């Protein structure tokens, strides 16, 4: 279990993190979302020992993450970084060695990861000669080459074309299947929704929502019910207990059910007006959840 526990961090008068806590289970893919400047990168840098937390701790299997643990963490910084003049193969071997592999296994791992990420032909090329997309692959290979126990990736998908996104996603899912907890930050919420078992939404220095996407949906403010009853008169649902009408337009009604609201009663009432063409709970998208969470902290905090 990778735990981020009550992280606080201020740069001068700018309080960036105010108690960030979340946990990632082995084999879980955790999407880390938040607006620009919310503190995602700072959180990850604290985990990697590149910034010092004012308070709080990051733990791996109950043990504070220190140098020894970090050597088993694959990391991809937001600002990509490789030696521009070093060859791909040598570079990967070097990073594998820095993470504790011996010379021969490091060279083997470098060769096999270059191959797996489609860089086999480019192993002898200097990194600066590669396209940006290929440099990104080398960066990912550098994070994966030591077969890490934990992956922490800052915006790994930014700047990738759809094919690149798919192959990176596949590589990450494979790591999850291996039992590695993967944390990655992203602005591409559709991607997070598609890939992640769990998400955390960071706003104003705190995790304002976290859990599985399904869990977030069910705990979202007042569940919404969409009823399409073409013949219903306006205001047909207004009198029902525990029901608030969010919008109503020519028989297409969105209702919010609070405590005491009963969806079966709503259906029965709707049927009395005539034909019911559509009756379903409305699933909020992650984008909507994110927007809600980021705009109104108090109501969502759970």
């Amino acid at each position, binding site marked *: 279990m990778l735990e981020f526990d009550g992280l606080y961090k201020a740069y001068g008068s700018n309080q960036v993190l105010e108690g960030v806590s979340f946990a990632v289970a082995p084999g879980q893919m955790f999407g880390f979302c938040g607006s620009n400047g919310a503190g995602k990168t700072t959180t990850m840098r604290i985990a990697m020992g590149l910034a010092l937390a004012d308070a709080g701790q990051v733990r791996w299997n109950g043990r504070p993450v220190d140098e020894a643990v*970090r050597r088993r963490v694959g990391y991809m910084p937001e600002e990509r970084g490789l030696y521009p003049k070093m060859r791909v193969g040598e570079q990967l071997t070097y990073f594998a060695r820095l993470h504790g592999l011996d010379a021969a296994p490091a060279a083997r791992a470098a060769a096999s990861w270059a191959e797996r990420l489609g860089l086999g032909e480019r192993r002898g090329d200097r990194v600066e000669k590669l396209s940006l997309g290929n440099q990104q692959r080398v960066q990912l290979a550098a994070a994966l080459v030591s077969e890490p126990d934990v992956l922490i990736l800052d915006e790994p998908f930014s700047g990738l074309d759809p094919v690149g996104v798919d192959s990176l996603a596949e590589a990450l899912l494979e790591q999850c299947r291996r039992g590695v907890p993967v944390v990655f930050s992203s602005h591409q919420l559709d991607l997070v929704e598609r890939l992640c078992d769990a998400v955390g939404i960071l706003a104003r220095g705190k995790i304002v929502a976290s859990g599985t996407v399904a869990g977030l949906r069910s705990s979202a403010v007042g569940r919404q019910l969409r009823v399409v009853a073409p013949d219903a008169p306006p205001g047909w649902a207004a009198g029902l207990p525990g029901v608030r009408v969010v919008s109503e337009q020519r028989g297409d009604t969105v209702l919010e059910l609070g405590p005491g609201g009963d969806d079966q009663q709503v259906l029965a009432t709707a049927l009395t007006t005539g034909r019911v063409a559509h009756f379903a709970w409305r699933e909020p998208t992650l984008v909507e959840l994110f927007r809600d969470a980021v705009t109104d902290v108090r109501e969502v905090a759970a």
Partner: protein
Amino acid sequence: MSTDIRPHTPAQLVRLVAGREISTRIRDKGFLIGSAVLILLILGMLVFQVVINSGADTTKIGVVGGSAGVTDALRAQGDALGTEVEVVEYADEATARSAVKDGDVDGVLLGPSGERPELLVDSGGSSTETLVQGAVQGMSVSRQLAESGVQLQAPPRVDVVALDPDADADTQAAVVALVGVVVLYSLLILFGQFVAQGVVEEKSSRVVELLLATMRPWQLLAGKVIGLGLLGLAQMLVIAVVGVAGALAFDVVDLPGRLIGTVLTVVAWFVLGYAFYASVFAAAASLVSRQEDLGSVITPASLLLVVGFVISLQAGQDPTGTLSTITSFVPGLSPLVMPVRQAAGGAEWWEVVVAVVLMLVAIATIVRVGGRIYSGALLRTGGKVKLREALHAERLT
């Protein structure tokens, strides 16, 4: 797979970093060409010396019908004229003639003790002629004096009393030290630049963030400085060996022992100077994030090197002067000035000890302060970090 993985000790990490520095640099074309040029320069200087000194070679003179007295007379005359004389005996005129024709000897003296001695030369031969003429005249004068019954007292020998018996050797050693200091200065500038460029490269390419996720700043700094330092030392030693071997082979110096001693002194001062300047350059370079900005931060340290170099040239001429005496104690200047003073015989042993101790104290301080600046500034990319900020920044120990 994970059985292959074990945590590193700090020494292993330092070694890994050092290994990367060496293997990257040793394949760099610029570095290889630079090293070749330096070695060629040293060899060129040696050849130049040999050509300058070539006036003092030996003269080979053949003699037909000579004696011990003839040989002595020829040698004595050679001494007077500043050339070494080798006398070769030939049995008859015919063999002697062919020896002159083949160029085996510079000339052949026939019948030196007779009435009409003859000198055979291939062509011209004025210096040989002067020598032989003098020797024959000398023998003739002594013979005639002896025949007239004059007993010659041995003429009084002039005893030479040198007020400074080592002066010549000192000058020679000072020249060797100056050549050494030129090499030392070039290598300090070169490898100081390498360290600085390496630091900025890691910052500008942001790879430093990936590196610091696996090691501490001081390990990265130590690996870089030690790796490049070993390479610099190796280059210094190659140049020293080529230089000394060449000097001995071409017989450029009189006292091989002193030559080697001076060279070793220069090498030792290189190690101290490198530790000093590499730390300064690394700390300065960590303040900037782009190669273009590098010049502005390393100029002060480079200037100190240039000042030291100029003073050392001056110290070669005046090793006991006030300027060279004072600066030979100043850390940063001492690696350039002190070896020249030492070689020129202008430094007492305790002065050297004081200079070395001062230098070691300075290095220890610079490594501490420079390491602080380095760790404080390393992760601050974009723009130039102020020295004060770097010193007070949070450090990742």
